[in-house]
C-alpha cells in the first residue's frame, strides 16, 4: 500500500473549483514534484494536505490512516510537515529556539515541570538542545544558532524552515517552492540537501517548484496541474516532453 494516498481531493471556494479530483499515490522514500503555472492550485493542495483548508470532496490517507478534515496540529502529529512559500518563521525567536519549537511534540515535559524546574525539565531540555544542535549542523546553521530568525539572510531562512519541519519527525515533508529567490549555486546546494535529508531522515518528499533544473534534477515523478486539474502525470523526463505541458506551462 502506498504511504500517502490521495483520492479525488477537491475544494470549492464559492463557485470556483480551486482543486478538482486530485489523485496521488506516494511510496515511502519517493521524491515527487508538483508543477504548474501560477494559480494552478499547487499551494492549495498543500493547504488541504496539512489541514489549513478542509476539502469539500475526496479523502487522503497517510499509512492507511485517514487524515481528511483533521486539524493542522493533529496532521503534523500524524506525520506530515511542511514549509511555506512565503517564509513563516518565528521571527522573534532565535534560530535555535525555532528548531526547539519544532521538537515540541518529540520531547515533552509538563508546564509544572517547567515552572518548578523539576528534573524532567533539565533532562528534556538537554535532549532538546542536543537534537536541535544536530539538526542545525545538518543545515550548516549552527553558527547562527543565537541569531534572531528574522535577522537571517534569505537562503538560511529557507533552510531553517526545512530544519524546523524535520524537527517534528515527519514521514512526509511538503516543500513549497524551496528554491524561490535562490541563485543557481544555492539551488544546486539545495538539491543536494534535499536528497541528503531524504536519505538521512528516511523521508518521503513532495515538492512544489518553478525551477525546472531542480525538478528535473531531483524528482523521479511529477504531476502537472493547470486550473486546478491534473494535466499530466508520470516520469519527469517524459512529462516534461509532453506537448500539452509545454503549451500550458513550459513554453518554447
Amino acid at each position: 500500500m502506498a504511504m500517502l494516498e490521495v483520492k479525488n481531493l477537491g475544494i470549492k471556494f464559492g463557485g470556483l473549483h480551486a482543486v478538482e479530483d486530485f489523485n496521488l499515490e506516494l511510496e515511502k522514500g519517493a521524491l515527487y514534484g508538483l508543477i504548474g503555472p501560477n494559480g494552478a492550485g499547487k499551494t492549495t493542495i498543500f493547504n488541504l494536505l496539512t489541514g489549513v483548508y478542509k476539502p469539500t470532496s475526496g479523502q487522503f490517507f497517510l499509512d492507511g490512516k485517514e487524515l481528511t478534515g483533521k486539524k493542522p496540529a493533529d496532521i503534523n502529529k500524524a506525520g506530515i510537515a511542511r514549509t511555506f512559500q512565503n517564509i513563516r518563521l518565528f521571527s522573534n525567536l532565535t534560530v535555535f529556539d525555532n528548531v526547539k519549537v519544532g521538537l515540541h511534540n518529540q520531547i515533552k515535559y509538563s508546564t509544572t515541570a517547567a515552572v518548578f524546574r523539576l528534573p524532567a525539565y533539565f533532562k528534556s531540555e538537554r535532549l532538546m538542545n542536543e537534537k536541535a544542535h544536530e539538526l542545525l549542523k545538518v543545515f550548516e546553521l549552527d553558527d547562527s544558532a543565537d541569531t534572531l530568525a528574522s535577522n537571517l539572510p534569505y537562503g538560511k531562512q529557507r533552510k531553517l524552515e526545512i530544519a524546523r519541519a524535520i524537527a517534528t519527525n515527519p514521514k512526509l515533508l511538503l516543500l513549497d517552492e524551496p528554491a524561490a529567490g535562490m541563485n543557481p549555486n544555492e539551488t544546486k546546494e539545495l538539491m543536494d540537501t534535499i536528497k541528503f535529508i531524504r536519505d538521512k531522515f528516511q523521508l518521503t518528499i513532495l515538492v512544489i517548484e518553478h525551477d525546472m533544473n531542480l525538478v528535473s534534477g531531483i524528482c523521479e515523478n511529477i504531476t502537472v496541474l493547470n486550473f486546478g486539474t491534473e494535466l499530466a502525470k508520470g516520469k519527469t523526463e517524459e512529462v516534461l516532453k509532453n506537448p500539452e505541458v509545454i503549451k500550458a506551462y513550459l513554453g518554447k
Partner: protein
Amino acid sequence: MSEKSAKSPLLKKKAALRPVTKKNLVTYLMVIVFFALFQTLSATGNLKFAYKSLLVPICTSVIMAVSLNLVVGVLGELSLGHAGFMCVGAYVGSFFSVLTEDIITVTWIRFTLAFIFAAVAASIAGVIIGVPVLRLKGDYLAIVTLAFGEIIKSLVNVLYIGKDSNGFHIAMDSAKLNMELDGMVIVKGPQGINGTPKDSTFFIGFILVMLTIFIVTNIMDSRTGRAIMSVRDNRIAAESVGINITKYKLIVFTISAAIAGCAGVLYSHNLTTLSANTNNFGYNMSIMILVYVVLGGLGNIRGSVIAAAVLYSLPELLRGFSKYRMLIYAIVLIVMMIVNNGSYFVKLKEKYSYKFYKKINSKKNGKEAV
C-alpha cells in the same frame, strides 16, 4: 542520530549560564535590592508615611503588570479585563479572611489559604472568559475582555452575601437576604466588604513579586513558553509544527488570571474597606496596567517591573507640584515612550547589555565566551 556526543562549542555555551538565566538573575537582584533598601528605610523611620503606604500597592501593580505581560507580550493578545481577575481574587480573598478570622487564628495560615482560594477562583474566571474568547482575535478579543472586566465589577456591586445559623444567604438585593437575627452580612453590595484583616505587608508583597517573576520567566524559558511565543509570532506556522493553539492560549489566560487574583488578595488585605469602582477594578485600572506593560516593553519582564513601580509611585512623588501633577505625569509618559523606542537609546541598551553579558561570560568560563 546521536553518534557524536563530543561537546561542540555551542552546546558548551548552552551548558554554561545562558543569557536568559542571567537576564532573570539581574531582575531578581533588582527586586531584592529595592526591597532591602525600602525595608531598611521604613524600619529605621526614614520613610514618610505617605511613601510607606505606597510600598504594598507598588507590589500589587508590579504583579499585575508582569502577569498581564504574559498575555499581551508573550502570547500577543490584547486583554483589557485584567483588573476583573484582580477583583475576583480580592473579593474571594477578603470574604474568606473575614469569614475565618475567628476560626483560623494563625495569620499566615489564613492568609496563605486566602491566596490559594483567590488564585483558584480567579483561574476559574480565567477559564470561563478564556473559552469563548479563544475563538476571537485582536480587537474583538480586546472588546470582550473589556466587557468581562466591567461585568465582574458590576456583579460584585450588587452582590450580597450573609451568614447566619442557617448557613449562607446570597442575594442581589439586601432586602432579599432573609437573615436570622444572629446573622452577619459579609459582602454588602456597593459598600463591599468591611473589616478585612490588614495582613498585607511589604515583605509579603515582595515574596509575591519574586514568585510572580519566577513563575512567568520560568514559563517563558521552557517548552510551554516557546509554544506560546510561536503562536504569537506565527499562528499558522505554529499549527503546522503540531502546536495546539487553544491549549496554550487557555494555559496563559488561566495562569495570568490566577496571578492577578493573588494581586487582588494583596490589595484587599491592605485596606479596611473593599469596594469595586472604576479606579480599582474597572477599565481605568486595566488600562493603567496595560500602560505599564507597553511602556516597560512587550514581553520584557524586567521592563514591566520597573515601569509599574515607577509609574505607580510617580503621582504620589509629584504631589509637590499640586495641580500640575497630572500634567507632568502625562509628559513623563510621553517622554518615556519616545526615549524607550528611540534608536539612540535602543542602541545604547543593546551595547550596554551586550558588554554586561560578555563580562559575566568571560568571568565564568575564561576566554572562550562570545
